[in-house]
């Protein structure tokens, strides 16, 4: 029985002393004893750790301008973590094989030489194929289910399917009509006497619903730290919404190229307390209902 030098010597599982373990476990254990398999697994673990650490860095970048400012943005960040954690092992395994091959873990032939022998004639490996397809399908299915559930959650936050008397503070939602045009945003508050404003002001913990349209070309209404975005289309009305959970000043940007001054089509969202909001409305000449 002459083999390559990497084969381990006879172990307790050698057929001379048969055990009760199923044959497939024996095969897996044997496979795990190949040196390169162990090294690949360690590299995979290390890279997985790096990827998971990077996900915190990524979300950190997302929060640099003051977010998260709403439950929707929190969900988005949670989803970033979940997506990264679940995909990390597969990514890491791929990069591990890449790294190991490149570093010459299985040997290599220098660029100036000619290859003198062939590698092992592995046409396919049923176990590997089935395992891979199963893992990828399960992962994809999980991503789909997670995504669908998240989408439903965010949609209900955005379009106000929660009845008014279940809102925090039992507050009536604020409706804002958003008009995009080249190159500015304007906001109307139809329930407050139709006041118009170039800045978006909202009270904290009160759901805000937006009707969005455009007077000319396609714009995109993006309230960055609140995690909502919807195109402003000419000839149509689109909807979005969120409940601000953090006081402060945030960014509203246009996210669809709309011409000469697209880069400057920004304004601010200011989230204030309910009292400040009411006095702001009065200052703009509007009427406040209780």
């Amino acid at each position, binding site marked *: 029985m002459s083999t390559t030098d990497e084969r381990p010597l006879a172990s307790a599982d050698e057929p001379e002393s048969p055990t009760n373990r199923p044959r497939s476990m024996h095969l897996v254990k044997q496979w795990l004893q190949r040196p390169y398999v162990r090294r690949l697994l360690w590299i995979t673990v290390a890279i997985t750790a790096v990827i998971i650490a990077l996900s915190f860095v990524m979300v950190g970048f997302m929060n*640099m301008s003051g977010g998260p400012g709403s439950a929707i943005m929190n969900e988005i960040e949670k989803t970033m973590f979940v997506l990264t954690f679940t995909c990390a092992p597969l990514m890491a395994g791929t990069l591990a094989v890449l790294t190991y091959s490149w570093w010459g873990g299985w040997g290599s032939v220098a*660029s100036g030489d000619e290859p003198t022998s062939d*590698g092992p004639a*592995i046409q396919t490996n049923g176990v590997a194929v089935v395992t891979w397809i199963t893992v990828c399908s399960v992962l994809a299915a999980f991503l*789909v289910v997670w995504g669908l559930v998240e989408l439903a959650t965010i949609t209900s936050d955005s379009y106000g399917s929660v009845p008014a008397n279940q809102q925090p503070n039992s507050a009536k939602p604020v409706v804002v009509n958003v008009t995009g045009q080249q190159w500015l945003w304007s906001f109307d508050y139809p329930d407050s006497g139709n006041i118009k404003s170039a800045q978006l002001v909202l009270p904290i913990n009160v759901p805000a619903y937006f009707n969005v349209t455009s007077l000319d070309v*396609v714009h995109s209404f993006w309230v960055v730290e609140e995690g909502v975005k919807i195109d402003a*289309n000419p*000839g*149509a009305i689109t909807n979005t919404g969120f409940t601000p959970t953090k006081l402060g000043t945030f960014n509203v940007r246009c996210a669809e190229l709309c011409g000469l001054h*697209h880069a400057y089509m920004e304004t601010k969202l200011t989230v204030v307390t309910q009292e400040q909001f009411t006095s702001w409305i009065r200052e703009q000449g509007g009427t406040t209902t209780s």
Partner: protein
Amino acid sequence: MSTAVAIHEQAHVPQPKQISNPGGFLRRTNFLTALVSGVVTAAIFWFATDKITSAVTGPGATNNMSLPSGLNISITMMYIGWVLGFMAGIGAFAGPIRWFLGHDLTHADAEYMAGKDMGREKFWKFTTDHKVVGIQYLVVTLILFGFGGLLAMLIRTELGATWTEVFNPNFYNSIIGTHGIVMIIAMIIVISGPIGNFIVPIMCGARDMAFPRLNALSIWLLIAAIPPLVSNLLMGGIRDGWTVYQPLADQAPIGMIGYQVCIITFAFSTGIASVNLITTIVRMRAAGMTWSRTPILVYGILGSAIMGLVWFPMYQYSQILALSDRTLLTSFFVPASGGSVWLYENLFWLLGHPEVYVIVIPATAGVLEYLPVFVRKPLFSYKLAVAGIFGVVGLSAVVWVHHMYMTGWAPQSNYPFMMSTEMISIPFSFLVLVMLGTMWRGMPWKRLPMMAVYAVVWNKVIGGITGVYLSDTPVDQYMHGSMFVVAHFHYMLMGAGLFGAMGVISYFFPKMIGRYLDEFWGSVGFWTAFAGFQVTFMSMFVAGLQGMPRRVLQFDSLFNISNWISTIGAYVIGIGMLIFLYAIVDSWRNGIIAPDNPWGGKTLENFTSTPVPHENFPVLPVVTSGPYDFGTPDPYELADDAIMRKTEGAEKVSARS
């Protein structure tokens, strides 16, 4: 109407009457006559249309966006005149006219048109030999990348100079759109053009493609399509991204017409090329080359051609209708008169999504094709690779709405399209498994094509995970329209696509040109560009995560640092690509002469001489085995078999995979 030159088979077939000298009208046509004819026809069309429209519509007729539509019509006719004149001047109409009159090509005509014994001149003419067309595509592709790359340097200069506006916003908006479409066109043709035309017929064991005259037609239509596109920058620019969303595109000056005529023409070029590739691959493989012995590159190009064939007319019609809105004042995309922006977006993305697979699949299949040669092992699970390619081809048709999650078009549709988008990652993962499985336990031969594989896998992993983020609608609600998207698609199309194409081209370079690509300078250029690429686009991910929108030339100071870093990285890419270009040009003239089988491969092109003779093979080959017959028996399996034989005594050992 196949006019493939078949030296030995046709010598004794009665010929139709030889009308004039062999080649007929095509004896007098070349690139120069095409240029002159194009310019003259353009001028005539413009002048005539101008006169007619001012007589008919009078001064002051306007379209919906305050541009005089008469000018639009005459500029449109000018560009159409350019295309028609150019094609007439290269001799493209000779074929249909001869067919109509019944003056079919004789053997001598066909040989003339295939450029037999013609020297360098054949590259400047309407030559049908697929090897000539392949070289023409290679040169055109390099020129397009050069132009697109120059625009990229300008873009990054603007974004890096955060303290000022280097260009005025209209020009900046035009160069980002032009950069985008030039690069997209170049990436669509980079593998299917040079490799699909030059290598695939030889790899299939044929003498030429199925429709050689259509082959020449497709390259010359592509060449005709480029000046209208490039000229846009001189005519006010397109002032829009490469997606030229309506109704913003309607506000653009007449430069937009150049874009639209370019796409309409390019769509014909691509469609014709796809027909040619599909028919060649399906009908002209050598005897014995069954579908299970067909090289994976051929499958990849077949899948890409099918997608292009089926979906390109959507894009073409979106531009035709947009042009109609501008010139005839129709209202397909003008909401005030009944048009819909969502109609435009749907027509566009119905092609727009399959298009990225048109780009990525040939590059991936090309890498899979040569990887076995460099690890000297069979391609791992060949059938899985084929399944992966066709899974992607099939599913690519039902994911397009993920580009429109945020348009508000049909919010309920976000659910099924998110599902289909996640699902398409599964067949794509098959291709990754095949790549990994082929690398597994193989000893890589560290030449440039092999090193490109590592670059491709790395970029694909990063592009892939960022694609997973974007495919999730809630996350896309943050990421859409930000620089995160820009970095993602550059990782896929450039990182996996272009670097893969560079590997594929360096692999087939010896066979096509007759000399090896300079290993040292090629590698220096490649890795310099790769390093610059990581810096540029990793930093761009950061800018996107921080909340920087795309297609903006000025932005919040929060994004300054990531833009400075990206710009430095971009200059490094530029240097690297120039070095790679130098390697190509220098090797073309002075490289090491390549033998018949430059890398020890087993596909058919390695069994004819280098350079490839005019008729490809003196005798058409017969295939008796698959193309990845490498490898020695696996020592682990032998050992396991020995143990099993020992334990199970006389029990027969069943054959492993």
